[in-house]
């Protein structure tokens, strides 16, 4: 699993393309060529750098052992000490109508398998995704669905557990050590790893993947960010690889976590086709990739389905079982764009899990028809939404105007009427339960039109020409307060934007809601060609991942937000290793940003999932039920 921050899309968010979510997730970098991550620099550094011999390193480094964990076993161990609040039979018989209900169901169905006899190893699972993937190559991943697939087919040496603590996975790693000065990480991988074509997985694959990701010519959409903080990666033998860092950063534990591809497949073909998916040879491996993870892709029908099959050579090595057998024989990702059709498929048992909208959760999944085969669970998810103001426009450059926007919006209408009281208001980017959130969270904004009007008047946006619309003299010309608000074409979000339009009309501002197809919107945001936009962000595993949204000049800082204090604090946060002190730094960033209101922060969206009643071992983290360790690997079907 990779750290990271995705743009929330759950079908189409801000950057629709960026959503993370497979077992992994990504940081910034968007657009072909990963334009926002200074790629040239690390390459240059790499060329000059000659890795010292291993013996020399071992003598000087003063290696400190880092955790190598079998996350499934760890979770099983933790659960052994807990007592579920309800039996499975009771949980399956009840309907999820309140928070206590939800806790009972989640607790009972969250129990991981303790005995092989419980598990139906011949079971298939049908998962729901909303869009097709652009690529099956893990280094090309960028959208949620691509992380979903790559998380199961890809090879991972690092990950994080349900507390979002970084670790190396025992399934693939022998040892992981960090040098005393924190400038190096040494990884020894297991000998019994093979690619799906039978060739051994070696440390050279790791080194090759690093060079490929950092190769300017390869259009890596997302995974280059973070990886670009490394100075070099060098394989000393088939099992040992050392990561060299440019600086001793708290985020280095995340930067060494990048997807690994097979060197023997791409080594010679890369120079012919840097896109990795256009040449005949690459198309072959795009459709039938060589996988390092527990599943391989066995069928792919564009816009319909992607079928993954359990890989025997993953858990068996030379005839002996060396790893846990993956719980499903086959995973079928069904691509259903329309949420209603997906819900119907769910009720008919054609899919086993899906994300439910607030409306579906409250009004369409309470009947016996739904509960015949399914149940539902909600979990905390640190995903927040807001209106992003472009500060290079005449309207939103003034913080008073942005505050007026925050005062103008009717939060109660949104929370109670549009979201059925399921979502909570957001007062900044970090959820109050997170360690990086400020200890004293800032007060929520409330709708106060008088205050909004005062602020607008003070900022010079008064009705000078008496036509009932606010305006301001800029360079001798009277500019009307009329802007357009970009919004992805999702009914729920359009209605939210329409609510803002109504609210602003009450105080003499014209807001034109523009619904855009998600890729067009993504493009406009990246080029900063917008006045205001609606969107949201998921959480990264580390708060530092938000730096590319808020720091001056960063790739996903669409609205040109800039506060030197925030930039400084991000730098401090990376250099600080004490979690408590780091928490204080990010808490301060949170407060500063909330004070500046580059976004009008609206709400946190929790996770709402429907599951087939046969599924067990489902646990929720702030990053949802799949994208952590063990995540999807702990989920199984009963016989």
């Amino acid at each position, binding site marked *: 699993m990779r750290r990271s921050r995705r743009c929330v899309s759950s079908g189409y968010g801000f950057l629709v393309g960026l959503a993370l979510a497979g077992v992994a997730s990504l940081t910034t970098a968007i657009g072909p060529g990963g334009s926002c991550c200074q790629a040239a620099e690390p390459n240059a550094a790499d060329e000059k750098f000659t890795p010292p011999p291993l013996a020399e390193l071992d003598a000087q480094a003063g290696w400190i052992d880092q955790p190598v964990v079998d996350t499934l076993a760890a979770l099983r161990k933790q659960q052994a000490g807990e007592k579920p609040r309800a039996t499975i039979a009771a949980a399956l018989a009840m309907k999820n109508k309140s928070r206590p209900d939800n806790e009972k169901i989640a607790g009972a169905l969250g129990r991981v398998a303790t005995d092989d006899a419980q598990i139906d190893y011949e079971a298939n699972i049908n998962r729901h995704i909303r869009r097709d993937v652009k690529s099956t190559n893990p280094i090309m991943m960028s959208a949620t669905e691509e992380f979903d697939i790559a998380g199961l087919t890809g090879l991972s040496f690092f990950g994080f557990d349900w507390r979002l603590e970084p670790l190396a996975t025992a399934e693939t790693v022998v040892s992981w050590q960090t040098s005393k000065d924190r400038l190096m990480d040494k990884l020894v991988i297991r000998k019994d790893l093979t690619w799906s074509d039978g060739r051994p997985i070696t440390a050279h694959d790791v080194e090759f993947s690093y060079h490929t990701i950092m190769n300017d010519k390869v259009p890596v959409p997302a995974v280059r960010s973070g990886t670009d903080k490394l100075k070099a990666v060098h394989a000393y033998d088939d099992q040992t690889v050392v990561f060299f860092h440019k600086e001793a950063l708290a985020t280095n534990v995340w930067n060494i976590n990048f997807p690994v591809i097979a060197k023997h497949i791409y080594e010679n073909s890369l120079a012919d086709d840097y896109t990795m998916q256009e040449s005949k040879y690459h198309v072959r491996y795009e459709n039938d990739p060589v996988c390092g993870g527990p599943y391989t892709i066995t069928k792919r029908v564009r816009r319909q389905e992607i079928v993954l099959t359990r890989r025997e050579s993953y858990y068996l090595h030379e005839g002996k079982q060396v790893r846990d057998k993956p719980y499903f024989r086959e995973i079928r990702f069904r691509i259903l764009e329309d949420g209603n059709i997906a819900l119907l498929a769910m009720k008919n048992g054609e899919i086993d899990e899906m994300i439910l909208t607030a409306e*579906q959760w409250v009004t369409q999944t309470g009947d016996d028809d739904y509960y015949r085969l399914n149940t539902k669970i909600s979990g905390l998810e640190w995903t927040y939404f807001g209106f992003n103001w472009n500060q290079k426009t005449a309207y939103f450059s003034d913080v008073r105007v942005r505050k007026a926007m925050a005062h103008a919006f009717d939060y109660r209408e949104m929370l109670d009427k549009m979201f059925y009281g399921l979502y909570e208001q957001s007062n900044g980017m970090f959820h109050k339960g997170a360690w990086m959130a400020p200890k004293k969270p800032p007060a929520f904004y409330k709708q106060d039109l008088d205050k909004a009007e005062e602020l607008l008047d003070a900022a010079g946006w008064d009705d000078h020409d008496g036509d*009932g619309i606010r305006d301001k003299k800029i360079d001798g010309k009277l500019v009307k307060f009329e802007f357009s608000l970009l919004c992805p074409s999702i009914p729920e979000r359009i209605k939210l934007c*329409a609510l803002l339009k109504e609210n602003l009309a009450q105080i003499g501002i014209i807001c034109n809601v*523009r*619904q855009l197809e998600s890729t067009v919107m993504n493009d406009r945001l990246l080029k900063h060609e917008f006045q205001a936009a609606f969107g949201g962000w998921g959480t990264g595993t580390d708060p530092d991942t938000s730096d590319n949204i808020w720091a001056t000049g960063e790739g996903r800082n669409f609205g040109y937000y800039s506060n030197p204090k925030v930039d400084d604090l991000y730098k401090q946060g990376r250099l600080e290793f004490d979690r408590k002190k780091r928490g204080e730094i990010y808490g301060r960033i949170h407060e500063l940003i909330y004070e500046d209101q580059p976004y009008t922060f609206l709400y946190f969206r929790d996770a709402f999932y429907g599951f087939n009643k046969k599924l067990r071992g489902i646990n929720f983290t702030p990053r949802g039920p799949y994208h952590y360790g063990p995540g999807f690997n702990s989920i199984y079907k009963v016989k």
Partner: protein
Amino acid sequence: MVRAATSTSGSVDAPPPVPETAHHSRGFWAEAWRQFRRRKLAMAAFCSVWFLVVVALLAPAIAGTKPIVCRYKGELYFPALAYFNESWENPIFFNDKFRKIYPKNLKKKDPESWAVWPLFYQDPFRRIKEGEWEGQPENPSGDQGAPNKYNLFGTNQQGIDVFAQMVHGTTIALLVGFVSMGIASLIGITFGAVAGYLGGWADMVLSRITEVVMCVPTLILILALLAIVEKTTIWHIMAVIGCTGWTSIARLARAEFLKLRDSDFVIAARALGVGWPRIIFRHVLPNALAPVLVPITFGIASAILTESSLSFLGFGAPPPNPSWGTLLNSGRDNMHLWWLIVFPGAAIFLAVLAYNLIGEGLQEATDPRLRDPGR
């Protein structure tokens, strides 16, 4: 002008001794109207279209939250007109911080004021809240909005009244039909007339252009347009539907002109030295119009459908628009909310049916072969 060229009712050059009782033969259009009126279904459809026109014109008076007329601080105002054009709302209400809520503020800020209110205090753009209108509860939201005394057709998930949205959506439905087909007939008739009358290379070029336009899928063109234009309005959509929907009109007009250009009255006009544009528009066109009207009527129906499907897909008029298709779309999110599907669905169906019936009636009324079977 030789009106009766295609008419069948009697001869124009009747013998001179006219008896006093003999009536003038009716003109072509009068005869067509007489025939049209005989067809009950077509007449019913015709009336229902007029009914829609009335609803559209009176929409702010039927459902709205702004007074139709009010006296405030000694002056008369018509705030309801703001539903047609936002800038028609008098700035005094902005300056006095009404914030679009009239009932309470009128009384509070000027106890002497009076107002005439719409029939239903409901808004097509927002939810009515508690206490806004005395004695009327707040609009239910979520799946609680089944039709009731205050919300005749129920409310959508956000608590916005469906009846108000439908009444105000009538304007869009009608406008889309008339404006887009207005544009289409203008282009289509001009192209067809010129191609048919001039013939030769002009016909060749114009017919090929027509064929090229026929190949352009309207829906995709509109989607492309939405991505380019900064502030799309319903007018852009009408323009696109109009600019792509004229081909069948052009083809029919061309056929009519081909038929008529060698008739006696045209030759006579030409002999008198009349210029071709004048012959086309003054002499031939009135005689060629009847068959062309039919595809126009059908075109109106299909334009309404196009707009509804666009809105249904979420690419219609910019939000918040009270279009019928948009309502259907919100019904799609939750099939249990039958009132979000039945009412707008029925409205679209009936409007399209009405136009089709009118088209059919028109066809029968103007085409002698259909009109008088057996003769």
